[in-house]
């Protein structure tokens, strides 16, 4: 079976569904029971996922805790799941963030608590499933399944413009992914043509030698699908709408995990499947990433709405992640992976913070606030920590990730790195400026004078994230150590494959050249 002799990943992945089923049988008026039950399930889920970290072997790039069963034999589908260093931490981040989402919705969500908690738990299953799937169709199913609960979270519990945001979110993402589906079918067909086997097994398909021209189109379909999810400039327009309209828990999940699905998709699927096309696309992607970094930061700078500001900062941060991955060296890739986690922690926390203010004042406009630090000192401390983490001050987690990405980028894409660095400065500018306008300045709004500081529940919600900011800032080695082998393997195979494809392209062009030459020779001899 696997290392633990026990289907641990399946258990962790499907446990939330069990929780959702239990919730269905609780009276919908018993709101505190519902919240409590959801919390208990989310916590149990987190604790049963912890052994995975300790049992994880950091020395190998192989898939671990693998489970594999035939699903539809005749179509080559299998239930094939496993974790490696690339997915491990995002997987853990998901189980870590879900209890926090339940906690932060405790009073924020007052109507239809039952349905809300059920959606949250179903979403958790879908996300975990997408992270562990090693069968392309299984992955696609979880990938699409993520949309349904998120669609409901935005559409039912969102702000005033929620319907527009929810439908836009769903259609945007689904439109991107159907082409990925076709591309998957094509891979399936190519694999059969070359090896005679019908399979959607990702690790088998990695080995496939795809003709360069075909590879371009297949890769494009995957890229568009993942780029929408990331989101990369210019496909990011759904994100601010979705974030602003979503309830706090929705935003936290969206920023913390759903967006990572895009960047994770690049590392797990798009790049290893289509190394040569990825290599050719690198200048485009890296440029778009840098444009995203600067554009996201500039737009964030002028936002009057705090939540929108944080949403645009996501565009900027994920630009870094993409730049890191497409630097294709150890520092860049590991930095990108690390930055995914950082962004989940710090941006997730920032959304929580904005949500807490919104719960008190029912506004998110920066101009409505000012001098809050005087009335809410504890809150101000947390907000400061998260702001510093977001702008990557040394000692916080953000610094490690951003630093590694920039080092990696300087090695392979120096010009891009120069511009990306300016994004770091802009990041400091918009975050600190927001902090200044909200927390300092004279406390002149009467409504703000009576604001209560954080209660115990809210502190408990933020504290784990704040601790994580420093733990990840001071001891990045522990986390990166577990990624090392997989990232090395990722880069090694990438380099090998690119070299192989380049050789192929060269050979074929030389063959063509030789053909043309011999034809010319023939012509000249004939004319003689």
């Amino acid at each position, binding site marked *: 079976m696997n290392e633990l002799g026990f289907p641990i990943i399946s258990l962790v992945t499907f446990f939330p569904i069990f929780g959702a089923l239990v919730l269905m049988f609780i009276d919908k008026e018993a709101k505190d029971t519902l919240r409590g039950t959801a919390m208990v399930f989310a916590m149990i889920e987190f604790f049963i996922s912890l052994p995975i970290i300790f049992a994880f072997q950091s020395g190998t790039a192989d898939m671990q805790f693998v489970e594999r069963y035939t*699903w*539809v*034999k*005749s*179509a080559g589908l299998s239930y094939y799941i496993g974790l490696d260093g690339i997915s491990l931490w995002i997987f853990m981040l998901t189980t870590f963030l879900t209890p926090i989402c339940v906690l932060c919705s405790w009073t924020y969500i007052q109507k*239809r608590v039952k*349905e809300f908690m059920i959606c949250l738990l179903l979403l958790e299953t879908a996300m975990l499933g997408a992270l562990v799937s090693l069968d392309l*169709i299984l992955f*696609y*199913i979880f990938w*699409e*399944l993520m*949309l*349904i609960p998120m*669609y*409901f979270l935005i*559409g*039912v519990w969102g702000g005033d413009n*929620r*319907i527009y945001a*929810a*439908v836009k979110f*769903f*259609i945007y993402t*689904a*439109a991107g992914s*159907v*082409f990925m*589906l*076709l591309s998957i*079918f*094509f891979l*399936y*067909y190519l694999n*059969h043509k070359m090896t005679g086997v019908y399979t959607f097994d990702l690790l088998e398909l990695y080995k496939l030698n795809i003709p360069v021209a075909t590879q371009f189109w297949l890769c494009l379909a995957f890229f568009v699908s993942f780029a929408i999810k990331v989101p990369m400039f210019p496909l990011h327009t759904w994100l601010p709408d979705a974030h602003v309209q979503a309830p706090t828990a929705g935003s936290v999940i969206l920023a913390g995990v759903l967006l990572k699905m895009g960047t994770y998709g690049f590392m797990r699927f798009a790049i290893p499947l289509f190394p040569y096309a990825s290599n050719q696309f690198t200048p485009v992607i890296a440029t778009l990433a840098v444009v995203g970094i600067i554009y996201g930061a500039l737009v964030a700078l002028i936002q009057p709405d705090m939540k929108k500001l944080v949403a645009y900062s996501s565009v900027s941060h994920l630009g870094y992640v993409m730049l890191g991955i497409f630097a294709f060296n150890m520092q860049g890739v590991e930095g990108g992976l690390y930055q995914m986690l950082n962004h989940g922690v710090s941006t997730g926390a920032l959304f929580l913070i904005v949500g807490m203010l919104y719960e008190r004042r029912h506004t998110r406009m920066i101009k409505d606030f000012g001098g809050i630090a005087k009335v809410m000192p504890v809150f101000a401390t947390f907000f400061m920590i998260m702001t510093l983490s977001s702008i990557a001050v040394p000692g916080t987690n953000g610094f490690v990730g951003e630093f590694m990405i920039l080092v990696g980028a300087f090695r392979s894409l120096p010009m891009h790195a120069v511009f990306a660095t300016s994004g770091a400065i802009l990041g400091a500018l918009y975050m600190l400026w927001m902090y200044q306008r909200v927390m300092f300045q004279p406390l002149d709004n009467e409504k703000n004078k009576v604001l209560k500081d954080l209660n115990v529940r809210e502190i408990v919600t933020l504290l784990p994230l704040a601790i994580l900011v420093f733990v990840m800032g001071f001891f990045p080695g522990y986390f990166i150590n577990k990624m090392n082998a997989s990232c090395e393997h990722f880069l090694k195979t990438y380099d090998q494959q690119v070299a192989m494809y380049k050789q192929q392209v060269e050979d074929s062009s030389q063959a063509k050249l030789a053909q043309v030459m011999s034809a010319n020779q023939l012509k000249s001899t004939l004319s003689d």
Partner: protein
Amino acid sequence: MLDFVVPALNLKAILPQLILALTALTVLLVDVFAKEKGKTSLGALSFTGVLFALIALVLSRGSHESAYSGMLMADGFGFFITLIVCIVTILTILASMNYEKICKNIKVGEFYCLMLFAAFGMSFMGNAGNLIMIFVALETMSISIYVLAGFKTDDAKSIESALKYFLLGAFASGFLLFGFALVYGAGGTLDIVKLGKFFTANPDALHHPMVMGGIALMTVGFGFKIAMFPFHMWTPDVYEGAPTVVTGFMATGVKAAAFAALIRVFFVGFAPLQADWTTIMWVGAFLTMTIGNLVAIVQTDIKRMLAYSSIAHAGYLLVGFVVGTDLARSGMLFYLLAYAFANIGALAVISAMGKDGKEYTELSDYSGVGFKYPFLGLMMSVFIFSMAGIPPAAGFMGKFFIFSEAIKSGYIWLAVFGVINSVISLYYYLGVIVRMYFREPDREISIMAPTGTMVAALSIAAFCILQMGIFPSYIWDLARESVKMIM
């Protein structure tokens, strides 16, 4: 000299259909003699009858024989179609028991009797081995459905629906029959298997104008029944006007039967001509799904919307037809079953949305329904997501089988248009969810609590959708086996 061969009486080969017909006759008789009170049990009687037919069918699995001088093919393909028909009929009967309480003036006796006769016809269309047999089965089915469509005698829309369907249907039958006649003239036989043999043996007969004309006319006739563009115009009016449970019945049963006959005639009878009809059907598939989806977007009546969506589904099914490999045809069968569950389910939910003869079919009636009636809302969501092809519902697996086969066979553009269409369709499918869950109710609607049978029908449909979506192996293998066993 003509010599008549009296075919052997083979009751085993037609046992399921026989049970359907006998039940129909019993229902008719009981209706005449029973008092008002006894008539409430007619539904239960019909249900039992179909259940027995289903059992007889399941027991006959694996039979592979032609009976009555090749008129009837009791083969795997017919088995699957009869399976779909029986399931559709059972679900419709279960849902109708709620409906007869909402629309009180429905004459239940004739209602169930006609439904059973229609099912009888549909099943024979799937099993017919002879063009005449197809025609007779088609008429048995159609005439029952024409009457059923007009069953709400106090509703002008229902009458209009019946009349429209009847007039246009009669035309279409004419086309079909004329097509058969021309093919008979060219091939000298009406037996589908013999036609196939004849055309294989005489390839030069294939492009004879009579064969070409025959095929063109048959395409019109079948195209009408499956609602293929441009023969789809009747669909929205008929689906909208017919009693809602009947809409579900004809949107799924008739479609399954017509596709079955289409597949058998074209792939068995005219297999060598495949290259010729592919181009026409390619365009037909593309236009059918695109027009269906685009027009569905602007509908304000949910039944009309589902009518256009059913046109779009015919388009997806035609993609399988164009591809034409064994696996593509298995995909069509799988899709037909998945579509049947979702569509009957959705229309059953709509039929449950009523009280005292008043039905709520405006999309705006559905505002806030999801939270007000959680069970109906949840069921409707499952059906809608299945139709939209979102995993893990069966609709996704259906599209998966058809489109993956299309890619495999090189119909890449058709697959691309297919998935673009799925995205377009998301817009109006999501619109229903938006109504049900995201909007607050803007008017007071009161509906009758769904009866136990209705709850059963919806639960069965939803369960099967998830079952087929998550564990598709069993039905998929059954579909593949069925297509392999076509005679």
